[in-house]
């Protein structure tokens, strides 16, 4: 349990970055760094956070930070970890640095997944953090493997015959857990205590750990910037983004929900789902509800919870 009063007031992430007003990913980064136990370094994939925090000559980072490419953060982090180890063994450097590889959902679910898989398989002591805003927002809202069904993006528009994105959101944590790593978790910036706790656990783990955090994007979700945190909570409460941990393969729910919040409540606050509010797509909403329940029940089952 995180007590805000006890969290460090030291800001490793400075203001003056150029992420949008009400940016969820920005909150996710700041919270993640509050979990630091000591020296920390970030390897950042190309994406909103990278682009907006390091526009030369201004950097928002007060810790060692490197950006390489869109899809190679996990590999760059692997190399960095190897360098630290090798130089330490040879007496050329000293001191533990916790390495966090950070990617958005595009850099994680899609183009970067191979390098992440390699990093997990090789067993590097790195935390992989995916801030998920559910599309390629940096390039102007194109769909990704993390975009939920029904969401309109510029490459999965709500058309006359196709109502937004087809296909489900990838089970990224399931993929990570299947590598047999010690710790993987989903989180929401809406539930900061749970999220920061999970980041702390991930950093503590000796070996690879993964945290997947939902971080709404007012621009891409076409939502009110004021409601970023509210939406991050609702994503969890609707069952669309269940939060849980996988400790050495054992699933554990982080929040037990009695009844799921109707997804319409969540949809109606976001422009990307507005088309689904029309009567002709009623059936689509029903299908999304079925999918959501099915996935939610699957996680409950994995966590050994009663299914009601």
């Amino acid at each position, binding site marked *: 349990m995180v007590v805000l009063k006890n969290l460090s007031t030291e800001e490793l992430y400075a203001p003056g970055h150029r992420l949008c007003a009400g940016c969820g990913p920005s909150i996710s980064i700041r919270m993640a760094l509050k979990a630091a136990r000591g*020296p920390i*370094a970030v*390897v950042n994939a190309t994406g909103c956070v*990278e*682009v907006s925090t*390091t*526009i*030369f*000559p201004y*950097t928002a*980072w*007060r*810790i*060692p*930070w*490197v*950006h*390489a*490419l869109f*899809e*190679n953060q*996990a*590999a*760059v*982090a*692997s*190399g*960095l*970890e*190897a*360098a*630290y*180890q*090798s*130089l330490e*063994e*040879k007496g*050329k*450097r000293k*001191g533990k*640095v916790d390495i966090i590889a950070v990617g958005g959902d595009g850099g994680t679910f899609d183009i970067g997944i*191979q*390098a992440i*898989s*390699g990093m997990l*398989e*090789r067993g590097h002591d790195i935390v992989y953090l995916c801030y998920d805003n559910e599309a390629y927002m940096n390039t102007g809202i194109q769909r990704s493997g993390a975009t939920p069904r029904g969401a309109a993006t510029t490459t999965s528009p709500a058309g006359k015959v196709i109502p937004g994105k087809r296909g489900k959101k990838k089970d990224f944590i399931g993929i990570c857990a299947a590598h047999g790593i010690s710790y993987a978790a989903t989180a929401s910036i809406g539930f900061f205590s749970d999220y920061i706790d999970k980041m702390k656990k991930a950093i503590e783990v000796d070996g690879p750990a993964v945290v997947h955090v939902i971080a709404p994007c007012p621009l891409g979700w076409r939502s009110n910037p004021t409601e970023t945190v509210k939406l991050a909570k609702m994503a969890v409460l609707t069952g669309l983004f269940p939060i849980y941990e996988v400790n050495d393969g054992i699933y554990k729910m982080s929040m037990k929900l009695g009844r799921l919040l109707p997804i319409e409540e969540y949809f109606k606050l976001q422009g990307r789902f507005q088309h689904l509010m029309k009567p002709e797509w009623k059936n689509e909403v029903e299908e999304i509800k079925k999918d959501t329940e099915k996935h939610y029940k699957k996680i409950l089952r994995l966590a050994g919870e009663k299914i009601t």
Partner: protein
Amino acid sequence: MSRKKVESSIEGIIPYSGEGSTITIEGGAVCTQLGCAYNGDEAVAYAAKQSNVDVVAAYPITPQTIIVERFSEYVANGEVSTKYLPVESEHSAMSACVGASIGGARVFTSSASQGLALMHEVLYLASGLRCPIVMAVVNRALSAPINIHGDHSDMMGSRDCGWIQLYTENAQEAYDLTIQSFKIAEDKNVQLPITVNLDGFFISHSTESMKSIADEDINKFLPPRTPIYKLDHDSPISIGGMALPEYYYEFKRQQEEAINSAKPVVKNVGNEFGEMTGRKYGFFEAYEMNDADVAIISLGSTSGSVRSVAKKLRANGEKVGAIKLWMYRPFPTEELFSIIKDLKVLVVMDRAISFGAPYGALCSDISSILQNRDSEVKVLNMIYGLGGRDIPTTTIQQVFEESLHTAKTGEVKQRIKFLDMRE
């Protein structure tokens, strides 16, 4: 095979056993007083081992595989203190190398062909972030059709990636230049990645006798890396941020300056290496160029065949010469011009096609320096040996003879020719 070491500096074949020979094992190779039996890949792996590399991240690909296999053995047997990352692709191999390099490590990798192509975008990252990574490229053709044999299409496809590019003629040179590469790349005025190119199979898989260097001599020649910047807890810098149009151009200009700064370094390191071993290196090797009317310039293993043919023709009184280019990037413009300017005909051998371009890549470079200096040297471009097709000495002799004819008559039949092509 034309490139067999006809005029190798080491005489004869190594006696693997026999009277008066002491047989030892070095880096997995059989050695006698005359030298060690290495193929090109083994020689490179041994050079990397002796260079005290901190991190190796690599992915296997024919014909480079032996390098990573040998290195894995060194690691498995505890013969090196290197962290070896057996990554899941070449893209990740080069990415991990970049990560390790910015962490302050001495880094080595190797690749070939499709692997190098898969690394392509990361190559620019390595040079842009000024990471002194050493990579052996075992040159191989590119798909399609798939072909595992040697040509220069892979490296030529990435020639503008901002890396220093060296080419080697045989296992000895691959070994020697790998060691020198660390010293060149890590020089404080250079700080750029470097490739050591060796022809797939022709060099990588041919066992030849080679002189290795004692570990202590290498340690003296090559001190540990002193990075000019690194990412660590005591250095909270931001590397790889975004530079918009008002800044980007200046950083690229810095890079151009850095690669040109490598020239004196390559020369000095080559001289120093020569003092240590008796094998001196530089930008290129000029053979009988003082009074030559006709010369052939080439990269890699073909240079040996060219030199042997030139030697034969010289014996017949023909004024021919040969240039073996060790350093392709940065291009030794002035130095090369000074030895080719008085030729009548210069033949440029390109083992890759630059599709749709006037000439092959090497020939384009040479033509441009001659053109800009109002030279009257006639340049002929020979494309050859793609996909590992052999280039026999008979073909090279024919090229020389035709060029001598051109030198005499001034008549140029074809400026670009595809050697040994079935028409």
